[in-house]
């Protein structure tokens, strides 16, 4: 327990330490880089290379020192200051405030969504404190089949767990503001009924005791606006997803503990698996609509960072609380699905550039915006850095009176090149990337029981090495993907809002080649250029070239659940949640496997199934929603005239929103049957 309330003075020494060390390291590296580049004087392209290197190195230096802070935090085994934790007596008492647990969804698989809601609900019920919670599934689904299936799944869930009056379902037919608009709609209609808002994602899962602890921490810390519990990746079988799960379990705790340790009450919100204080959220976190057109203007896409900044601006603190645990989500099943998600996040984060200078924000909020931007912009910066390096070398060759042999002597492997110095710098850069990983490995190896749950010490080390090889090979492809997304956003491409792929399905070779053909071409060009201009650099660039050439194969093979399960049987990439899964995960898995009655055609289902018909009309009656008159009129013409022409999705939705037409159609159908 720490009763001392949070103050900026608590964070100052920690921030000076992490940011100062990152700045110092970057300074040393930049001086060394300048020395390497200026062997024959410094040209303009070389100055550009130096500037890019400094920026990129600063980013990895910040990640490195954040990781070191996390390691120190975990080894010290102490809680960060500023949050008041409950005493034993307080922890055993009832909750006095009410929390809404909400799950916004958009065309997701209802079986999985409601399995996760049910597992979380039952887990909260098992704590004996269910009375303090209500659950809401907030649907923005636009596909009629998903909509009707959700209604049936919700009704079935209420029946199963006797959840009438505690588990609610609301669907919007207008998706204004996307996920943030969905949540805002909830807050404006039901928010005042609750003290706290616990936000889940469609694939989120939370253990009941963690949910209760989050609500209790909010009760005990009236100055806390948001508590974020970092979710662990779990529950997938493909090799790609299992690699993500393993990496997250191995290095995630260091990263999260580090961020929590130096950011304290000025941390960030990741959009789900977090609890928010309702009143200030309603009062101070209504999202602005940015001036201009997409991609930079319009509705804010990545709402979480902005909501955290607004909450902080209003004087409430934002905390990362990794020690609570019991917070889960699912990773994307393959590299392409991961990239698809990245594309969405990339545009959302780049949109924050327009808010960095906004008046009244806390400096740490500005830093979170910049770090979010850097997490995507770092890729094109590295790419430009590599290209600029090549350009700077060619520039020297073209504009200096040197022969090809002399020119090649200035490149890596050449006599005039300070190979030892370059190797030192490269080793330092690689060390900064790898040391946090090794610290994560060290922490697990030091805990015999944890190491046993991750396959044993030998398998654990082997898994780390293999994961390192695969992620190194994937890195160039991700660099090109992210560069494409950043440049695409800057050029004005818009992101379409589609639900994330969450199924473990094999990736066809044709799709992999289609998506990676340009990556392979870049690999071929890079290899050809290297051989022609600087053969000595081939060995240095071989991981990049190989990664690009092998991109389709890497995508296809890592997308296979069979390979993921094969590795699991051999004890590779194991996480404790696979070896000894928590009850809430087991339950969610059981429920997901039970599945739901499929809804192949929403309208046909509502017209033929009496249960679906009665339920759908009752929900329409409870929450009448205005339809589209034009679409309804044309649908009625087709349906009531007995035309064979199929309904468009808009017409189908219009009919499903109109109780009169539905009753009429059902009457006709029964009449025909009679």
């Amino acid at each position, binding site marked *: 327990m720490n009763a001392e309330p949070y103050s900026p003075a608590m964070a100052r020494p920690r921030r000076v330490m992490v940011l100062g060390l990152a700045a110092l390291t970057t300074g040393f590296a930049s001086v060394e880089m300048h020395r390497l580049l200026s062997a024959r004087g410094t040209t303009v392209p070389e100055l550009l290379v130096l500037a890019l290197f400094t920026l990129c190195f600063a980013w990895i230096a910040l990640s490195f020192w954040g990781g070191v802070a996390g390691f120190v935090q975990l080894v010290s085994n102490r809680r960060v200051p500023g949050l008041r934790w409950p005493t034993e007596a307080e922890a055993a008492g009832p909750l006095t405030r009410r929390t809404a647990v909400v799950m916004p969804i958009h065309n997701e698989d209802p079986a999985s969504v409601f399995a996760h809601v049910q597992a979380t609900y039952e887990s909260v019920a098992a704590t004996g404190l269910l009375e303090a919670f*209500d659950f*809401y599934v907030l649907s923005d689904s636009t596909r009629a089949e998903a909509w009707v299936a959700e209604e049936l799944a*919700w*009704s079935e869930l*209420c*029946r199963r767990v*006797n959840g*009438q*009056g505690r588990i*609610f*379902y*609301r669907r919007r037919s207008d998706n204004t503001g996307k996920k943030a608009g969905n949540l*805002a709609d909830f*807050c*404006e*209609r*039901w*928010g*005042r*009924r609750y003290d706290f808002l616990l936000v889940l994602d469609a694939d989120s899962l939370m253990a009941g005791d963690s949910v209760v602890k989050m609500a209790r921490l909010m009760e005990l810390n009236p100055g806390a606006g948001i508590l974020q519990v970092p979710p662990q990746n779990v529950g997938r079988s493909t090799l790609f997803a299992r690699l993500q799960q393993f990496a997250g379990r191995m290095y995630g705790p260091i990263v999260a503990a580090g961020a929590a340790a130096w950011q304290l009450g000025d941390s960030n919100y990741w959009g789900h698996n977090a609890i928010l204080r309702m009143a200030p959220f*309603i*009062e*101070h*976190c*209504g*999202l*602005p*609509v*940015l*001036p201009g057109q997409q991609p930079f203007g319009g509705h804010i896409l990545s709402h979480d960072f902005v909501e955290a900044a*607004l909450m902080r601006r209003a004087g409430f603190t934002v905390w990362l609380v990794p020690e609570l645990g019991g917070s889960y989500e699912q990773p994307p099943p393959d590299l392409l699905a991961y990239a698809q998600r990245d594309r969405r996040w990339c545009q959302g984060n780049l949109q924050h550039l*327009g*808010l960095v*200078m*906004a*008046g*009244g924000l806390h400096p740490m909020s500005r830093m979170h915006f910049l770090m979010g931007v850097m997490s995507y912009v770092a890729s094109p910066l590295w790419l430009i850095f590599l290209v600029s390096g090549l350009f700077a070398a060619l520039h020297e060759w073209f504009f200096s009176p040197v022969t090809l042999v002399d020119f090649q002597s200035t490149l890596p492997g050449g006599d005039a090149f300070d190979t030892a110095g370059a190797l030192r710098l490269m080793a330092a850069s690689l060390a900064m990337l790898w040391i946090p990983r090794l610290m994560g490995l060290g922490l697990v190896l030091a805990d015999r029981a944890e190491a046993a749950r991750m396959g044993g010490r030998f398998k654990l080390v082997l898994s780390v090495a293999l994961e390192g090889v695969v992620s190194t090979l994937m890195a160039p492809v991700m660099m090109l993907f992210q560069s494409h997304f950043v440049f695409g956003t800057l050029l004005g491409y818009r992101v379409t809002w589609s639900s994330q792929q969450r199924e473990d399905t094999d990736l066809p070779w044709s799709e992999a080649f289609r998506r990676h053909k340009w990556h392979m071409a870049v690999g071929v060009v890079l290899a050809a250029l290297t051989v022609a201009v600087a053969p000595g650099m081939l060995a240095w660039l071989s991981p990049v070239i190989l990664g690009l050439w092998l991109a389709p194969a890497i995508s296809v093979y890592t997308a296979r659940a069979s390979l993921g399960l094969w590795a699991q049987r051999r004890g590779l990439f194991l996480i404790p949640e696979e070896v000894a899964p928590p009850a809430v995960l087991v339950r969610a898995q059981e429920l997901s496997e039970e599945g739901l009655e499929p809804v192949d055609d929403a309208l046909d289902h509502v017209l033929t199934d*009496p*249960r679906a018909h*009665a*339920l759908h009309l*009752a*929900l329409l009656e*409870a*929450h009448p929603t205005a339809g589209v008159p034009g679409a309804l009129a044309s649908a009625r013409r087709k349906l009531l005239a007995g035309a064979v022409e199929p309904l468009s999705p808009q017409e189908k939705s219009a009919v499903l929103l109109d109780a009169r037409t539905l009753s009429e159609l*059902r009457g006709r159908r*029964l009449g025909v*049957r*009679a």
Partner: protein
Amino acid sequence: MDSVTTHPFLSFAPEMPQARADTREALEGFFQDFGFTGRGDLERLASWVLGPSHVGPSLLVRGRAAFVLVGGARWGADVLMREPRNLPEAWRRAVCESVPMAAPAEVPCQMREQVLVLNPFMELVRRWLRPDSRADVSPSR
């Protein structure tokens, strides 16, 4: 409402071997509309309505009339309106679990859009250069 089990008294209904297949199908459809799904239940309900001497195509009308005359709607209303303690627990639970309650009563409020001056420095310059121009703030909804 997965299925509805018929009351025991229906098992005493007479057999109906002579009922036409299309008539029986129409009646089954009618009772399916009320949630009866079991084959045996549907046959017994159809037998109960038709009786042994059934003829003619107007059975659906007779079936609806039977539902009205037997007071089906009144029974339902009675169950819904009675004090919970007067109902058998199984009935009470069945009714409670079947009434869809999508969301509780709303408590409307407005989540005001926050106004952010996106670049305070440029805002100062703007005010100095063109005092009448529009501020670079997030526009309101």
